[in-house]
Structure formats: structure tokens, C-alpha cells
């Protein structure tokens, strides 16, 4: 608990004071900088790890076989590790360092509980380590920025909401500064909203310790995921960093924020608007039109508060620009805030439907998020750390020159990263859409479009090397500064009176300016209300302020969620769309575990160039059994929404063995382990049971003899592979399940109703003669998708 030694002393005076009868006592307290040192150190360590993994995945794109096919180090497993490490480990620990340092000083109080502070630190590090272990092992939900499985999600909820949130809120309640400074508002919004997003997006039914199935499916899952995904950017990478900006920028510049009024408008506008904007990630998909439009509309409105905040930050330096030239801390902040302005201009622009149609799935999005992450989040954290470290370690920075070198290396690194990737995004957008005079695609071979941007990916690697170098400089400089620390830290004792419980506001009772006018009493009351004294009171009441912030976020959410979930016409069902067979479900689990969504979308938009390239556009009813949805957000490889029946099963087998064998020039790594690792048929049952529990219709046979049902289908596909010249006993291997799933994707839309009397299952040894020819046709991709579906149905 907070240490405070009460002593008798004078009470508050003047504008606001305690009630006359209450005795006011002075209390002594010390700030807990130990916890800030812990989080600052973790920020640096995880920052190095996150950027190094980012560099590795950048290299894997240009040299896909460099890891020798080791599954734990494939691009699709490491990319989520990179994004999670950058967001939750690097930025997360940076946020906590900022919150623990600034909250104590803004509240003039030590954190409420040292024990909770330490539990927060170690609990969060446990989350990070758990992520670092499980993601390379393929234990993942495959939902962007929400990849971690349910046991870790529960740990996050407990650490974030009860330990961190509880400690923070109690510190606010026990504070000694009457007014809650605007930075604290941003922290409140962060804690409340992230908890809300995390809990509701991660509602799953467990199918074991390492697997949970989302309670949402298809369109609704997509909606929830991007409600979460976009607001993770908003309330994890924006609002806490704005709180950080409003505290540390004035500190470093030694002058108050340019406009406190603007900061209030900035706060409420962001909280009101941001939560609506998620659906802009799903333009032209199977999401209902109204949701997409509202996402765009509110995204455009974000221009206003975002630029208000940027201007407020930069103008805080009015009259102090000479300091910027000399002080690397301010340089980091200026570049960071500038990138905030750039990113928040670009984000709304990308949400405009016509622009989004061009940029979505391209590398433009990657450049956009890295401008924000490296420029805004990275540089704000660096500026904060370089300002804090000498104060935390109570000595000078080891090398000021190295700080400057970090600044320039990092700045050039960001530019060298994003400029080529913007160019790559433009090239992809144009090449994917380009059509000749006869109305045919100019680049029908997808690999051609990928190959053309590989040189730009190499430039990105160079930019990444520079940025990582900067991180290493920060690490070295911090370590050397720490080594120069005093043998014992000074810990000054502060003295302040406790805030009285019975606060008496000595501001004169508001009177209406129209008291003497001949108007209704109601008019006079409105006049008094409009003076907004009530809002001043909110700003002193943390619990009520938190409740109102929560209401603002929840109302906006419900406006979108209720119709999405309750209006049946949003997701018209399709009679021929059936649940996945047990083997296909197991295959889908492999697809999800391998993180295939990192490179392949499963969503064909109703855009001519897409329907020409991939086939019929995707319909909402096609995804009702997809938990999680796998629409993806990026196309390093082609879309797979109509993959079923396009290639033979043996083609897929060969493709997993070495993609270059069937797709020369492919940047996809080999998935040889799927061809060598045995398929565990007994492990399929829990997946089927959960799918059935969530509403998928399965027969008693499927539910009670899952392994046998799956095995029969596997034997059929294995015979298919043999007939194509492939190896025997393919049914023993994991690849067979993934092939079963891929052959099923997108075919139900074209299927006809099953015949009244199902055909007898076909044993592999019986596959001869005419039947073998039929299979061969399917295997060769000669038959239409419905033929493939019929084959699947027969199984």
C-alpha cells in the first residue's frame, strides 16, 4: 500500500478547500520509481526482440527457404510473434512505464499497491513469454492482434483489468491533486476500452488447453475482430501514447501544453469516434453495406481530433524550437508527433471506399502501420525513455552522441522502410487491377506481381537493419547509464495534504445570465447547465469519469453490434453451405495453426479484376461455419476463397513439399513437416464436438466415431494422390487433412442439393476404372467446382 505518514498541518485554502469541521493533515509519500525502472528495462529488451523478429520476417520474405523449412520459424508463425511483440511487449511495457511514472506525479501519490504493481509487471512478462512460446508452436487463434489462445487471454484479462486497472483506479481515488490532468483521462479510456475489446473479442468455447473456437462465426466474427483490431490501434497504440505526449512533451519542453481546452476536445472526440471506425477494414467484403459506410464515415471524422492533437503537441513547442535543435529528446517527440499526424491523415484516407478498394490487401497497409508503429509509437517511447532514464538511474546519459545517432539512424531507417513499401503497395494495386483492351487481366499470374516487388522488399530489409541498429544503441546506452548509477538511489519524500472527502467547491453558485429576462424557468436552467460546471465536477470524480467514458464506448459499440447480430438479413443463409467434415475441420485447424491468413485472404470482393482472377465474389452465407473467419488483410499469395477443386490433391501435396516445384518463383516456404508428421485422428473429436455445440449440424456418426469418419475421407484423398503419381499412405500424414480443407473451400456455393439416398462410401482399394478416372478429373482440376463438392459430399 502507499506509504503515507500523516502529520498535522495547514489545510487547503482559497478557491477550494475542505469543509470547516474536517481536520486537514499533511502526508508524506515517496514515488515508486522502482516499478518504472522495471517497465522501462522491459520496454528496451522487448523492443530489441520485437524489431529483431521483424527484421527476420522481412528477410524470410526475400529468402523464404533460409530457415530450412523449420516450422517454428516460418514467416506465417513468426509474423504474429513480431506484431504481438511490437504491440504488447514493446509498446505495452512502454505504456506502463509512462503510466506508472506520470500517474504518480499527476496524482501526487504513490501507486496504491506496490504488490499489485509488481504483480502487474511479472504477470505481463509472463503473458509475453507465453506468447513467445506458443506462437512459434502454432498455438494461435489466427485473428490479427488477437492470436493468443484462451488461457493466455484469461491471464491478460486478469493482469490488465483487475491488477493494473484496479491499482490505477485506486491511485486515482487516493490522489492528492484535485483535478485529474488530461493525460489521466487518456489512461482511463485505455484501461476501460482495452478490457472491453479484449474480453468480448476473445469469447471462445475451449476444445482443449491450446485451442478455443470463437463464439462468433464468419461475418459476425469478422465484425467483432475488426471492432477489436482497429480499436487495439486506437486504445493501445493511440490513447495511452497521447496521454504520454500530454505529460512528457510539456515536461521535456518545460512549458505547459499549448491548449488545455483543445486537449479536452481531443479526448472526447477520440473516445466518441474511434470506437465506430472498425468496419472500414472490411470494405467490399461480405459485411453489410451500412456497417461499412458507418466505419468510413467515422474514420473520416477522425481527421478532426487527430490533427487537433497533433497541432496541440507541436504548438506546445512554440517559442522553444531552438531547444529542439539541441535536445534529442525533443527531436524524437517532434518526429513522433509528426508521424502521428501523417498516420492519422492516411488512416481516414485509406478508409474511403474507392481508395480502400485499391489499397486493401496490398503492402500499402503494411507501410501505413509501420509509419505509425515505428514513427509515432517507437519515437514517442524513445523520447520518453531518453528523458526518463537519467532521472530513473540518477545519473547522466552515458552518451548523448549515441542518442543523437539513434535519432538519425532511426529516422532514416523508417524512411527507408516505408518508402519502398508504399511503392510496393502501389505496384501491387495497379498490377492486380490492370486489364488490357480486351478486358483480360494483364498480370493473370499472381506470382508475377509478387516477384516485381521483391527488390523493394530488399530495401525494406536495409531500413529494418537501421531501425534495429538504433534499438541496439538504446540498449547499449541504457545499460551503460545504469552501470553509472549511484550505489543507492535517492528517494525524496514529498509532503502534501490529503484531499478532503467532503470537497467544497468555492466557485460561486452558477447563475443564469438571463435571470432577469422574461423566459421560462426551463430556459434559465438550460443556461446554467450550459456553463458546464457539471463537467468540471466529473473531472474531479474518477469513478464517475470512468463510468461515463465506458458508456461513451459501449453505446457506440452497441449501435453497431446489435444490428450485426440480430438482423438475419445481414447474413443470408445458403442452403448448400454445410458444416466441414471432421477431416476438413482438422485441416482447417492446421490452416489456422500455420497462420496461412498472414499471406492468403479468403474473401473475393465484388470488383471485376478480383472476380476475373479468383472467381465468383464471396457471399456472407458462405462463412457461417468459419470459426474463426479467415478473410485475411494481406495478399502475399493469391486469395483462396475459391481454392476448392482448382488444383489436384497431389498438386497441393507437391506444393507443400516445395512450392517452387509447382509455382516457380513462389515466395512461399516449404511445409515439409506436414508431409512427415503423422495425423492424430483421435485428436479431431473435440473440434467436432465444439463445432456441433456452436450450431453446426453433425450426424451421430460424426460425433461418436469422429476418427473413423475422418480416416475414411483421408483414405479417399490418399487414393486420389496415389492415382496422380504421389506417395502411398498419404492418409497417415497431416497434409491430407489440410488438402481436404483446401479442396472444400468455396465450393459449397455451387453445390447442388445432395441426393435423397447417399452413395456408399468408397474404399480406396475400390478406386479403379471409371471411378479412378472421375477422381483424376477432379484431381486435374478439369471438373467444375460442384463436381468436387459432390465428391466431398459422397464421402
Amino acid at each position: 500500500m502507499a506509504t503515507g505518514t500523516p502529520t498535522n498541518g495547514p489545510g487547503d485554502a482559497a478557491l477550494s478547500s475542505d469543509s470547516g469541521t474536517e481536520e486537514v493533515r499533511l502526508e508524506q509519500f515517496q514515488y515508486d520509481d522502482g516499478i518504472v525502472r522495471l517497465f522501462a528495462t522491459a520496454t528496451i529488451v522487448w523492443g530489441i526482440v520485437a524489431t529483431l523478429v521483424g527484421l527476420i520476417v522481412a528477410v524470410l520474405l526475400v529468402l523464404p527457404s533460409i530457415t530450412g523449412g523449420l516450422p517454428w520459424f516460418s514467416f506465417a508463425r513468426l509474423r504474429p510473434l513480431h506484431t504481438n511483440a511490437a504491440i504488447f511487449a514493446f509498446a505495452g511495457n512502454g505504456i506502463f512505464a509512462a503510466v506508472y511514472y506520470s500517474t504518480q506525479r499527476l496524482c501526487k501519490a504513490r501507486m496504491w499497491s506496490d504488490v499489485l504493481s509488481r504483480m502487474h509487471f511479472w504477470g505481463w512478462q509472463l503473458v509475453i513469454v507465453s506468447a513467445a512460446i506458443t506462437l512459434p508452436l502454432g498455438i494461435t487463434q489466427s485473428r490479427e492482434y488477437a492470436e493468443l489462445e484462451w488461457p493466455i487471454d484469461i491471464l491478460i484479462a486478469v493482469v490488465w483489468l483487475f491488477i493494473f486497472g484496479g491499482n490505477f483506479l485506486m491511485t486515482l481515488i487516493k490522489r492528492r491533486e484535485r483535478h485529474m490532468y488530461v493525460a489521466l483521462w487518456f489512461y482511463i479510456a485505455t484501461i476501460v476500452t482495452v478490457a472491453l475489446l479484449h474480453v468480448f473479442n476473445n469469447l471462445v468455447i475451449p476444445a482443449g488447453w491450446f485451442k478455443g473456437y470463437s463464439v462468433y462465426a464468419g461475418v459476425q466474427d469478422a465484425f467483432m475482430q475488426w471492432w477489436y483490431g482497429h480499436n487495439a490501434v486506437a486504445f493501445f497504440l493511440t490513447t495511452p501514447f497521447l496521454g504520454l505526449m500530454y505529460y512528457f512533451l510539456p515536461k521535456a519542453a518545460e512549458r505547459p501544453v499549448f491548449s488545455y481546452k483543445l486537449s479536452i476536445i481531443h479526448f472526447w472526440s477520440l473516445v466518441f469516434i474511434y470506437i465506430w471506425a472498425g468496419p472500414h477494414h472490411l470494405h467490399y467484403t461480405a459485411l453489410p453495406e451500412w456497417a461499412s459506410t458507418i466505419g468510413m464515415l467515422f474514420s473520416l471524422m477522425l481527421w478532426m481530433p487527430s490533427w487537433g492533437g497533433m497541432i496541440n503537441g507541436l504548438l506546445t513547442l512554440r517559442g522553444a524550437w531552438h531547444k529542439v535543435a539541441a535536445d534529442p529528446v525533443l527531436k524524437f517527440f517532434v518526429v513522433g508527433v509528426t508521424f502521428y499526424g501523417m498516420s492519422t491523415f492516411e488512416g481516414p484516407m485509406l478508409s474511403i471506399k474507392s481508395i480502400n478498394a485499391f489499397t486493401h490487401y496490398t503492402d500499402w497497409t503494411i507501410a501505413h502501420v509501420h509509419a505509425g508503429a515505428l514513427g509515432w509509437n517507437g519515437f514517442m517511447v524513445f523520447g520518453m525513455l531518453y528523458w526518463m532514464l537519467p532521472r530513473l538511474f540518477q545519473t547522466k546519459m552515458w552518451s548523448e552522441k549515441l542518442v543523437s545517432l539513434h535519432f538519425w539512424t532511426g529516422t532514416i531507417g523508417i524512411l527507408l522502410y516505408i518508402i519502398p513499401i508504399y511503392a510496393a503497395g502501389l505496384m501491387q494495386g495497379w498490377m492486380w487491377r490492370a486489364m488490357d483492351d480486351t478486358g483480360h487481366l494483364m498480370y493473370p499470374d499472381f506470382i508475377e506481381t509478387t516477384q516485381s516487388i521483391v527488390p523493394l522488399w530488399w530495401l525494406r530489409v536495409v531500413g529494418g537493419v537501421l531501425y534495429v541498429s538504433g534499438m541496439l544503441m538504446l540498449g547499449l546506452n541504457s545499460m551503460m547509464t545504469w552501470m553509472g548509477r549511484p550505489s543507492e538511489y535517492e528517494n525524496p519524500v514529498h509532503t502534501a495534504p490529503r484531499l478532503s472527502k467532503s470537497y467544497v467547491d468555492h466557485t460561486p453558485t452558477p447563475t443564469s445570465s438571463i435571470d432577469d429576462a422574461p423566459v421560462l424557468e426551463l430556459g434559465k436552467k438550460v443556461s446554467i447547465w450550459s456553463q458546464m460546471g457539471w463537467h468540471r465536477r466529473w473531472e474531479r470524480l474518477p469513478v464517475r469519469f470512468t463510468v461515463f467514458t465506458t458508456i461513451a464506448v459501449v453505446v457506440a459499440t452497441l449501435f453497431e453490434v446489435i444490428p450485426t447480430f440480430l438482423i438475419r438479413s445481414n447474413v443470408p443463409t445458403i442452403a448448400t453451405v454445410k458444416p466441414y467434415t471432421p477431416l476438413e475441420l482438422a485441416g482447417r485447424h492446421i490452416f489456422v495453426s500455420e497462420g496461412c491468413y498472414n499471406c492468403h485472404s479468403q474473401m473475393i470482393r465484388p470488383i471485376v479484376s478480383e472476380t476475373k482472377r479468383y472467381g465468383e465474389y464471396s457471399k456472407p452465407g458462405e462463412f457461417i461455419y468459419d470459426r474463426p473467419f479467415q478473410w485475411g488483410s494481406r495478399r502475399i499469395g493469391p486469395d483462396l476463397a475459391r481454392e476448392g477443386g482448382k488444383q489436384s490433391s497431389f498438386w497441393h501435396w507437391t506444393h507443400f513439399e516445395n512450392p517452387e516445384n509447382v509455382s516457380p518463383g513462389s515466395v512461399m516456404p516449404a511445409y515439409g513437416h506436414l508431409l512427415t508428421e503423422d495425423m492424430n485422428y483421435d485428436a479431431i473429436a473435440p473440434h467436432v464436438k465444439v463445432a456441433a455445440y456452436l450450431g453446426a449440424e453433425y450426424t451421430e456418426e460424426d460425433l461418436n466415431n469422429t476418427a473413423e469418419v475422418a480416416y475414411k475421407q483421408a483414405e479417399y484423398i490418399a487414393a486420389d494422390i496415389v492415382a496422380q503419381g504421389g506417395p502411398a499412405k498419404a492418409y497417415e500424414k497431416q497434409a491430407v487433412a489440410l488438402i481436404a480443407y483446401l479442396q472444400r473451400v468455396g465450393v459449397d456455393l455451387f453445390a447442388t442439393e445432395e441426393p435423397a439416398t447417399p452413395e456408399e462410401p468408397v474404399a480406396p482399394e475400390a478406386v479403379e476404372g471409371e471411378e479412378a478416372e472421375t477422381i483424376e478429373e477432379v484431381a486435374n482440376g478439369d471438373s467444375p467446382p460442384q463436381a468436387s463438392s459432390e465428391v466431398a459430399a459422397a464421402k
Partner: protein
Amino acid sequence: MIRDLVSALDYSMFAELALALFVVAFATMTYGTLRLSKNASDRFASIPLSDDVEDPRP
């Protein structure tokens, strides 16, 4: 019942309604913020500049 009620709603005007809701909230907040006195605003803005309690406090 809620499902029937919501299904009966016409969401073609949804975006406009949401915009109106925001505009009202935003205008209220902006108006209130502009009513904040300069004295109070300056005091609040200077809170982070000192780690000690300023007395008299607001």
C-alpha cells in the same frame, strides 16, 4: 422480442443517425470546453510541470 424489434428497424438511415449523435455530443463538449476560464485552463495545463503539490490547489 429484441430480435423482432431490431429487425423491424430501417437501418438505411443508420449512418446519418450516428453522425447526428456524434455532432450533438461533439458540439456539447466543445461548447462546454470553450466555457472553461483561462485561469482554470492555465492551472490545469501546468499540473505536469511540477512534481510537488501546488498550494493553493484548484
